[in-house]
């Protein structure tokens, strides 16, 4: 999808997003979220349009987009698996789960499988610390993750 988007198409859509949200106090984060919601990442071409609409320099917008872990600069895979790497999950074997996920998918953190099916991302706490280890698959939370569940999860998203 994203690859076939022309520069004009991106600019038109981003302009509409900016027009929609520019009235907010401090509109830049809501705009970036909306852009990422649309394409799954922040297309390079969006920065200039946002900058113009908000009266900022392109470098300023880039500076903000690159500060936050959420904003991607490349298209993610068709599915995104986020695995919690924080302490409460570590206490319940989260590191082993994370290792297993990397091995099974053959990729490291923030990488996408060559078939573009899955992007694996680290996350630091999902608020499921009393039923750890935790993960989020395409926005859906999973608690008490174990190896079997992880294998099934990976099979599902790759099928």
């Amino acid at each position, binding site marked *: 999808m994203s690859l076939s988007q022309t520069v004009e198409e991106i600019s038109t859509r981003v302009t509409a997003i900016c027009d929609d949200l520019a009235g907010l106090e*401090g509109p830049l984060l809501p705009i970036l979220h909306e852009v990422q919601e649309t394409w799954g990442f922040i297309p390079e071409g969006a920065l200039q349009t946002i900058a113009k609409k908000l009266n900022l320099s392109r470098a300023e917008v880039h500076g903000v987009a690159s500060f936050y872990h959420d904003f991607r600069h490349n298209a993610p895979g068709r599915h995104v698996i986020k695995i919690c790497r*924080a*302490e409460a999950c570590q*206490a319940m074997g989260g*590191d082993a789960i994370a290792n297993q996920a990397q091995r099974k998918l053959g990729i490291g953190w923030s990488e996408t499988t060559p078939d573009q099916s899955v992007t694996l991302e680290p996350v630091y706490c999902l608020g499921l*610390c009393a*039923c750890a280890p935790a993960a989020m698959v395409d*926005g859906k939370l999973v*608690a008490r993750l174990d190896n079997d569940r992880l294998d099934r999860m990976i099979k599902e998203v790759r099928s």
Partner: protein
Amino acid sequence: MSLKIFIPLDSASVALGADDVATAIAKAADMRGIDITLIRTGSRGLYWLEPMVEIATDNGRIAYGPVTPDDVDALFDAGFITGGEHPLSLGKTEEIPFLKKQTRLTFARCGIIDPLSPEDYRAHDGWAGLEKALKLDPADIVQQVTDSGLRGRGGAGFPTGIKWKTVADAPADQKYIVCNADEGDSGTFADRMIMEGEPFVLIEGMIIAGIATGATKGYVYTRSEYPDAIRIMTEAIDIARAHKVLGPDVLGSGKAFDIEVRMGAGAYVCGEETSLLNSLEGKRGVVRAKPPLPAHEGFLGKPTVVNNVISLCSVPVILDKGADFYRDFGMGRSRGTIPIQIAGNVKYGGLFETAFGLTLGEIVDDIAGGTATGKPVRAVQVGGPLGAYFPRDLFDTPFDYEAFAKRDGLIGHAGIVVFDDSVDMMKQARFAMEFCAIESCGKCTPCRIGSVRGTEVVDKIARGEDPERQIALLTDLCQTMKFGSLCALGGFTPYPVMSALTHFPNDFKPHALDIAAE
């Protein structure tokens, strides 16, 4: 009359299968021709029993859990809709020891009411604090909060009333209430639970803060990892507006207050209040030097109250029941109740609201029931990724701001993470440094560079490269970070590192670290 069945919509309960259980119960009831009303509530916070299903009976609510969809037919066969016995029976909900031992002031309605029903909220004393506040002089509201002894639940423990007074006294055409719902600490979920289970209490607390200080606009800055909390808070705000609780004329008082929800973008440091304000303004989440205090120059340069979710949610009960009522709970200078979040490797994980003063040992051994794995408890990290690791020797520490500080620790947002004896404390120290390196806002060198150096030094100890010298270096590095950092990210990372080193020195010997590849 239709039977009332309660099932949580709390995101952790859903992650454990609550939606599937709700569907199975609705289907089974339909097949059997039984008229039921399913009510989705917040969670009671007894996560080892989730999904927990409750039935309204003449004798109060009866609970069953943890329920899976496969249990549903057997539950109906056992007559659970009238409180029938079944292996998953937990008896009367209120009598479950983990709940019965609590003092629920802030979380009084969580898990009981439909979070988005303003009628339910009112029927359970909702808006009572606000109605009392509207009859008071703003200065008297501030006085009540000050007298209650309430201190910020976000971590720093600053007296809430004093912060409010500073903003109330600051002259300005526009002031703001910013609710810090960034809850990034591992082991914490109180903010999430209350936003999902009882969102009106946060709205009520924010309105009271607005009226007390002269602020007319509020923001709830929530992390993007909490999509359900964001959705429920947003809906609750719309409902409150429709009921004229929010808007230009709060409950007919002639006073204005409105709230907007904003979403963070995966930066832990944005929980720090000035970084949060920059983020809210659409800037990089870099920490600001203080002064100026946010109370003088906060959001868009205007006087701003920044308060944690739980601080704000504790205000309505203080206004409703009085400052003395609240202050009478607790110990020393830690007044009122604190929702302790019990997490990690524990048998009974969940939220336990209680007066300050329980010892760490009582919490870990008695309430949490030890570890889930059944192995001995070795270390407990209190207060999130910037909090110290406590060994069993220090389990007599009472849950109190000053008592924890005296032991080189902090209670932070009151999350405790329990580890069994398989934990490698050198690995935990390395993680603390790594986390600081990942999340540093980059403004000061000790934090930005020191944390990276910290992980390298630990790796050298692991590889056996002159370990004695590296340990001295690590200690030095912690000193530099502690005293040379602008905010607590760089400044407190030494707590987990040094506590690991001090209390578990034998782990700091050369050995392979079992670490997930970068």
